[in-house]
């Protein structure tokens, strides 16, 4: 940790947008997922972000790990040309066991590409 974030650097070690920008500069496709709303208990607050590149590399988070897998799938679709998408996750989903939130909350996540 300390190695990635020496004393005095201006950029927090977990700056998702900065990492996304570096990926863009390298010519990679990049998608950004942002928590837009939460209801009940949810692991990450509104505004939390996850950046994903075309190879599925991730930085940041939109949950405690419960929905990242599904969000990455959507991110890959968006990077392949699908329009931006507002996703909703909650325990009431049919496939709650697979991609729901164990904590019982509900979240909306907006997925878009950086172009």
């Amino acid at each position, binding site marked *: 940790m300390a190695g990635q974030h020496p004393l*005095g*650097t*201006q950029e927090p070690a977990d700056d998702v947008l900065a990492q996304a*920008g570096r990926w863009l500069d390298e010519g990679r496709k990049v998608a950004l997922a942002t928590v*837009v*709303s939460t209801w009940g208990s949810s692991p990450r607050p509104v*505004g939390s972000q996850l950046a994903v590149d075309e190879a599925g590399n991730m930085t940041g988070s939109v949950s405690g790990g419960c929905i990242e897998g599904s969000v990455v799938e959507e991110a890959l679709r968006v990077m392949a040309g699908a329009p931006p998408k507002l996703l909703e996750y909650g325990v009431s989903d049919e496939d709650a066991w697979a991609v729901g939130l164990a904590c019982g909350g509900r979240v909306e996540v907006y997925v*878009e590409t*950086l172009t």
Partner: protein
Amino acid sequence: MKREVFDALQSARAAKQPAALLTELESGRQAVVAAGEVRAGALQPGPEVLDAVAAAVRHDRSGRLPEPLDGTFAAVFNPPLRLVVVGAVHIAQLLAPMAELAGYEVTLIDPRQAWASPERFPGLTLLDDWPDEALAKQAPDSRTAVVTLTHDPKLDDPALIAALSSEAFYLGALGSRRTHAKRLERLRTQGCDEAALARIHGPIGLALGGRSPAEIAIAVLAQMTQVLHGAEPPGARREAAA
């Protein structure tokens, strides 16, 4: 997000301006608002939206704007929290990197150059002015914490008095209960009133029971976090590590 929107957002953040990225969720159109003005994007927010964005930025709260504007999401990017540490002591060597990992921009003030050396604090912003002058220059705001660690009244007291005239969200002073009681006595004779003195957390830090410099740094950072989020129960101020 278009590259020009991304770049406008990142340059506002680099310039430490409070910024928001607006997204109309239905259309995907976006705009960057920084320091109150629209910087980039296809979305053209009207005055009502800009007012709502200003409120979101002030409260540091991302979210859908209030109804009927709730089709628009505002992601708020405020400049980093700041921590001003007075006293380049052993605890500061642990507290500074911990606070940086927690997202604070850290400045260290100590006129004693043997203490505030770049060898002891590689890469950190070091100020060797007298603490009250250095603090005045830092202009602590409501997203700034000020911590005094020198144990020396000549350095700590002027720093605390300067900090009390600011909006700093957290003030903490290292020292035992006895030391803190004497400090409050001195500050009273300097004209500080009780309401002001009650803002100073002393003995500093949550009562985690640790004694090592790292453990005290954790106690301090934990208390800063608690106060920042208003999670401190009224009247529940407890003694602390040191």
